[in-house]
C-alpha cells in the first residue's frame, strides 16, 4: 500500500506519511524535535500543533484537547525521549480514558536532537508494557511494514489507544514548522472554533 522501505526498522517519515494520509479532520500534536519535523515534512497545516518545547507534555496537551473536542480524533505523535519524560501522564490519561485520543511513540531508542545518546528504551524499557500497566486497554507494538495497516486501523477506531513504532535511528532532513507558538496555537483554534476563536472570553 505505502512504501515504507525494506530495512528492518521502519522509516519514521514514511510511517508518518502513511499515518497522516487520509487524516480527515484529525488533530495532531507532535512532540518537540524529530516528531515535529516529521509531521511538518508530511505537510504543515492548521490542524498540526508541532511543539518546540514543553518536553514531556505532548500527551497531556493531547488529553486537554481530547476532552475539549470529544467529537474529533486527537493524535499525539512523539519520540521515546519525550514520552519517557512524561511517563506519569500515561497514568493520568488512562484514568480519564478519553475515547478519541491516540498516542504513537516513534521509538528510535536515542535522543536524536542532542547527539544520539541512548534512551532507556535502548536498554529494554517497554513503553507498551508501561502503558498497559497504566490502564491502556488497546496497545500495539509496530515493528514491521506489515504492522502498519493495522496501526492505521487502530488509530482511526474508537477508544483510547497507545502504540510504539520501532523506527530507524538515522537522522532525516530538517523540515521546520513555524517557530512562533502564538501562530501555531491561533491557527489550530481558528480551524476548530472558527472566527469565534479570537473572541472567546
Amino acid at each position: 500500500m505505502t512504501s515504507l522501505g525494506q530495512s528492518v526498522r521502519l522509516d519514521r517519515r514514511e510511517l508518518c506519511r502513511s499515518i497522516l494520509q487520509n487524516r480527515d479532520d484529525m488533530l495532531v500534536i507532535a512532540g518537540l524535535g524529530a516528531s515535529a519535523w516529521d509531521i511538518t515534512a508530511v505537510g504543515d497545516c492548521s490542524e498540526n500543533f508541532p511543539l518546540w518545547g514543553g518536553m514531556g507534555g505532548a500527551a497531556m496537551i493531547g488529553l486537554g484537547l481530547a476532552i475539549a473536542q470529544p467529537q474529533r480524533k486527537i493524535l499525539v505523535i512523539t519520540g521515546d525521549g519525550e514520552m519517557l519524560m512524561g511517563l506519569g501522564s500515561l497514568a493520568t490519561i488512562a484514568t480519564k480514558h478519553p475515547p478519541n485520543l491516540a498516542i504513537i511513540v516513534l521509538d528510535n531508542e536515542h535522543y536524536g536532537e542532542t547527539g544520539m545518546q541512548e534512551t532507556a528504551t535502548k536498554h529494554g524499557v517497554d513503553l507498551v508494557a508501561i502503558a498497559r500497566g497504566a490502564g491502556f486497554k488497546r496497545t500495539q507494538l509496530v515493528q514491521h511494514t506489515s504492522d502498519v495497516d493495522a496501526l492505521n486501523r487502530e488509530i482511526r477506531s474508537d477508544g483510547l489507544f497507545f502504540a510504539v513504532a520501532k523506527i530507524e535511528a538515522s537522522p532525516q532532513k530538517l523540515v521546520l514548522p513555524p517557530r512562533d507558538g502564538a501562530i501555531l496555537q491561533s491557527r489550530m483554534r481558528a480551524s476548530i472554533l472558527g472566527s469565534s476563536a479570537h473572541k472567546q472570553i
Partner: protein
Amino acid sequence: MENNFSLWPDELYSLLKVHNISQVSVVPDAGLSRLITRCIDDNDIHVITLTTEEEGIALMAGAWLGGDKSVLLMQSSGVGNCINMLSLATNHRTPMPMIVTMRGDYGEFNPAQIPMGQATQTVLEAMGTIVNRADRPEDIVPSVDSTLRLAFNTFRPTATLIGQRILGAKTFGSD
C-alpha cells in the same frame, strides 16, 4: 486551625462556574479539598488528577487549543514541578490560571516545605506569571477572580497564592 466553616471554597467553586471553567486539574492539597469535591460533584467539570503538576500546565495548553477553559489547583511545592512546562504559556500565549495553596510560609512546622514555599512567588514570576497573594479570607475570591480574568483576557500564566495564614499550618499532632 480548621476551615470547616469557611465559605471561600464554595465561593471559589461558584467563581469557576461563572468563568465557564470546564477542566480542573489537581494535585490535591488539604486546603483545596472542599473545592475539589465540589468540582468532582459537577458533571460539567472534568477533574483531572495529575501525577505531577507540570502535567496540568500541558493540559491547559491542550484545553485552550480546543476552546475549553482550564485551571490548575496545587500546593506551593508543586509550583517547582511546573517551571519548564510554563514556557508553553509564554511561547503560545496561552491562558494558564493557577490556584496555589501555600506551604512553607506563615507558621510552618515542616522544614522541608520552607525552600519551595519561600521560592514559590519568585519562581512563578521568573517564568512570566502574574502573581496575586491572598493572606486574608476576604481576599481569596477577588484575587482568584482577577487571576482568571487576567489569564483569559490577556493570554498568560497567572496565579493566586492562598497564604498559610488563612489555611493554618499542619502541626503533625504537635499541638
